[in-house]
Structure formats: C-alpha cells, structure tokens
C-alpha cells in the first residue's frame, strides 16, 4: 500500500516516516525536530476543526499543523513494507 499523509492518522495510531514532501525550509525544520525517514512515530491526539496533529517522536511531543502533516508521508503500522 502507498504511504499516507501523517494528517490522516488517528489518535493512538503508530507509523513509520516514509518521506517528507515539502520545500527546503520546512523539510529542514522537520528533520531538525527528529521527523526523519525510517523513524517510528505515534499520534497522541488530533485537534478539532482541522487543527494540528500531536505526535510522539524521539521521546518528546511535537505539535504539527495540519498543512505540514499533509506533507509528511508515513506507513501505518501493521502494513508490509516493500
């Protein structure tokens, strides 16, 4: 199955980061905050009204705006990797 945007995950879901599909600046920030390909993340919660997604990554919690979360492609847990 194709990777899905992080924004599509639901609270409690786990996934592995596949790639970041964004400009240099945004990619840089995500990488610096530890959202790197191959890294496992877990969705803590998702704000209402199209608000941010809160994820647990590398032992800390990050708030990621919905628009940004659309640009992070992840492979949800339990799916076979290619």
């Amino acid at each position: 199955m194709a990777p899905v945007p992080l924004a599509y995950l639901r609270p409690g879901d786990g996934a592995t980061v596949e790639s970041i599909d964004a400009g240099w600046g945004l990619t840089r920030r995500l990488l610096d905050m530890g959202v790197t390909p191959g890294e496992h993340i877990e969705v803590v919660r998702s704000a209402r009204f199209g608000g941010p997604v809160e994820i647990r990554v590398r032992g800390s919690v990050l708030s990621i705006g919905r628009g940004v979360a659309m640009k992070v492609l992840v492979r949800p847990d339990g799916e076979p990797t290619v």
Partner: protein
Amino acid sequence: MNVGKSVLFNQLTGLHQHVGNWPGKTVERAEGTMNFGGHIIDVVDLPGIYSLSTYSIEERVALEYISTEKPDVVINVVDASLLERNLYFTIQLLEAGVSLVIALNQVDQAQKKGISTDAVKLAERLGVPVVPMIAVRGIGFHELMTAVVDTVEGRMAPKPVRIRYGAEVEAHVEAVAEAVEESPIAMPARFAAVRLLEGDDYVRRLVAQVNGKAIAAAEEHAKQLEKEHGHSAATVIASERYELARKIVTDSQSVAPTARTFADRLDEVTSSGALSYVIMAAVVASMFVIVFKVGDELSSLLGEFFLSLEPSVMSALGGGAVGALAWGAVEGLIAGITIALPYIVPFYAIMALLEDSGYLARMAFLMDSVMHTVGLHGKAFIPMVLGYGCNVPACLGCRIMETDRERTLTVFLTTLIPCAGRTIVILGLVGRYVGLEWALGLYGFDLLLVFVLGRLAYKTLPGEPSGLIMEVPSYKMPHAGTVLKRTWFETSSFVTIAMPLMVLGSVVLKALEVGGLLTPLSGLLSPISVGLLGLPPIAGVVLIFGVLRKELSLIMLAALSGTADLASILTAPQMIVFSVVTMFYIPCLGTVVALYKELGWKKALVIILSEVALALVAGGLLSRILH
C-alpha cells in the same frame, strides 16, 4: 524548548533575563559578567535553538557567534528527559569544533519520568565534561563552573569525539571537506562540508566567497548521495546524526516505566475534547479580568497619589515656560506610571505563569486552525492575545515566529488589535455615551478587518508560508523565582523603551501648547479632521497627542475642551469615527519603537503609513455613512 538555559544564565550573571517555556524565545543577546573563584568570566546568552542549520534567524545568530567570536567555552544546556533531541544539537556543536561543557539539566524532572542518566558514561561517549544539574535550585552550579574554568585553563583536557557518519556518507563528507580546505574559512572544513551537503544557504554563501570549487564539489556529491540513498543529502545526514544521538542515549540512560502522572492527565484535559476549549476561554477571560481589575485598582490608587503631589511639584518647578516644560516631563512620567505599569505588570506576570507552566503551547495547539484563517499559525495566538493588553510586548513577542514572513505578518496584525489604551477610548467614549452594543460593534469591526487584511497580506507577502512545528513541553509547576524574574525583566525592558519616549513626547506637546502652536496646528490639520472625518477642529491636535498614548487622545479632548462631558463636544457619529481613527492610525510611540526593533525601519514605515491610510479611509467612509 525549556531546558533551563535562561535560568542558568540568570544564576551565572545575576542579570535579570527573560525566562519562559516557549521554544526559541530568547533571541536577544544578553550578556553578563561573573566572578568565579577569582576568574572574571564573560557570559553570553545565545538563542535557544534545536539545530545549527541557519534556517531561522536564531540559528544564524548562534552559528555566526561561535564561528566568528570563538568563545573559550560553550555551555550546552541539555534537558535530561529530552536527551536524544538535545544531543542532536550537541553533535553539531562538536562538529563545529567548539570547546564544550555539557550542563545536564533537570535531572530531577527526568527522574520523575523514570529516566536516569549516567553522566560519566555520557561524558565518555561525547569526550567532553558533563555536569548533572538542577538549575532552578542552583544544584550543580559550582561543579559546572569548575569544569568550565578547568577546560579553559587546560587542567581538564577533553577529547571531543570526532563525529563520524556511515561509510557512504563519510566518503562524500571527506571529499567535500578536502575541497573546502583549499581556502580556509572561519569554521572547520568538515563542518562546512557537512553543511554544504545539507544545502545550508548561509555556509554556502560563506564558502562561495573564497572557494567556488568547493561549492561545485558539494553539489555533485549531494547529488550522488541522493542517488545512492533515495533521500536528499540533508535527510540522510540528519537521520544519521539522530541515529548517533540515539546510540549515545541508549548507552548512557536507562528508562523505568512510570505511572500516569497528574501532568499527563492535565495534558489530556487541556488539549482534547470540548472541555479544553472551555478551559482555554476561561483562562483567557480570567486573565483579562485579573489584569484589568488589578490594573484599575492600581491605576486609580497611583493616580490619586500623584494628584495629591501635583500642587507641591508645580510650585517647586516654578512658573514660566521652563516650569511648564518641566511639568510636561513630569506629566509624561506620571502617565507612564499610572497607565502603563498597573496593567503591564499583572499582564506580564500572568503571561510568564502561562509560559512557564507550559499552557501556552496547548493554546497554540487549540488555536492553530483559527489562526490559519488569517494566514498565521497557532504560535501567533500568543502575540495576538498579548496585543489586547498592550501592542508593545505583543510586537516584541512576535519573535517566536520562525520566518521573516510570518513575523512581519504577525507584527502587522498585532498592531491592529485594540490594546488597553484603545479600549479606554472605545469604552470611555462610545461605550459610555453611545451604547455598549456600539462599542462591541467596533470590536467586531476590528476583528473583521484583521481577518480581511490578514488574508490580503498572506496572499501578497512574498515567501513560502510555513505551518506549525512546535515542541510541546510537559506541564510543570511554575517556578516562582522564574516567573518573578521574567515579569521584572519584561517590565523593565518596556519601561526603558517607552518611558523616555513618553517623557520626550510629553515635553514636545507641552512646548507646542506653551508656544501657542496648538491652534495653528489644528487649522493645518482641519482639512483632514474636519473635512475628511467630520470631526471638530480640536480633534486634529488631540489625535496627535494620541500618538504618544492612545488613551491620551481622550484625556486631552476633555482637557482642551475644558469639560469632562464629552457628549457636549462630539455627536454620537463623531464619537464612533473618532474611536475608529484612534484604533487604526499610527500605533502609539512605544509600539513604533517595537516595530522598528522587530522589523527595521523600512517595514515599520510601510506598516505605519498603511495604517494611517486605513484609519483615514475607514473614518472618512464611516463619517459619511453615519451622517
């Protein structure tokens, strides 16, 4: 990022400095001197950052400082409970070739989360001294400074580990480093090579000045690396760096499972579900009730006190023009003390409390989607809320926005938020004489304008819009000393900006009055005040006073007309027009200074001029509609 850097800096230097919970908040360069065992040490507070990648202004400031000023030692404050994230940055500092001492802070908080760190092991892995600390309680302070002094004097000879990447990445780094080495720059060749591969624009420009060949080599190698790995060189390098950080953490830390804490439950309640919005509304509402209630009390108390002093001060200053000017200065001082301070001190205290506890980050989370409607993201909610109290700290607070574009946009919208001073005009004029519903209508109109202009600016400003990426700190009990210091620091920084201006402005206005220039000035402005806005001639001068402080326009209106019954001076439509103009025209003098500090004079001027135009257009239109 609340690693406790500012707390430590305060303790080292005794300087009162900004302390809070907001990621990357300390942008200003604070500096202080300390005496440790006979050594005079100069301490510079560098911005709190996650990386040296020069994406944000803060990162560039830090990299520029360490590469050009070559400090003897860099104290890297890391949070023991967020070691992996923090070591990612430590690794970059090691690459940059600085002499490091690690302050392993908040070991007590980490312990509560079941995390214990072997500092000796960590020091071994990094090759630099590691000192466990609890900065808020002053624990580890002496050991830290001993390590710093020993490092500088060569008694402790750290052997910083050489940061190595995987074999494939290493080959590219080495090749580029060789090319860089041909014309040395202010940073280690290896560090520059890694940065070039990552596509860092700042380092690229630095190297390009002396060595075009290295740039070409870096581009070539970055391309190859991408081909080999299927990810950009920046991605591969960042991943490997984090991998290294994880290995070091695994070697030096052990984690025991812990039960759900009160902070976890609080996080749940305040971040999700309908209740979280109710709580936030209650927090914001009570914040304003406290600020304005306490502010009103303090303000009237201070006002009465100064009023009782007036006759004796007046007689001491003597009569004549000099006496009048001197009184003008005193008036400016009093105005600053009675209006600004009573509202600003409680406001800052509450803001500090919210930041230090970690609640502000939850607010940003909840408000992100709302802020998107005006082209901003959740972090901008904080300066916008601050704006309702006072635009000056709100503008200064816009530094938490990462990019130039967002900062400009947030500053612009923040100056349109009706501050306490404007609220006094709206409520004291429209609310009192025309009706509360009209006053509320003006607030609604203002919000609508912020919305429309926000969208407009979002579309027209150049640059890539960016979204929210923010670390959410764990809740913690606010530290009283930190909150107090923070309040003190913020208040005094405001006073040093605003007070001299208020005094100066007040003297200038007094000079105009004494020189008999107010009436001619009114005449000069009448095409605008009378012709365009349909206000009485006196309004022109009064609005000039309002530049000093918005509420002064109301006070001067009463003073110059010789009556406190404003209904006898202005009709209801005139009051509305007057309030609208006051809301939008030139932000007060203090805000102008803040604008200049944050954006430079060019952007500040553009914002000021467009707001004057906005005020005149809105006022002129309203005047015609309402009459």
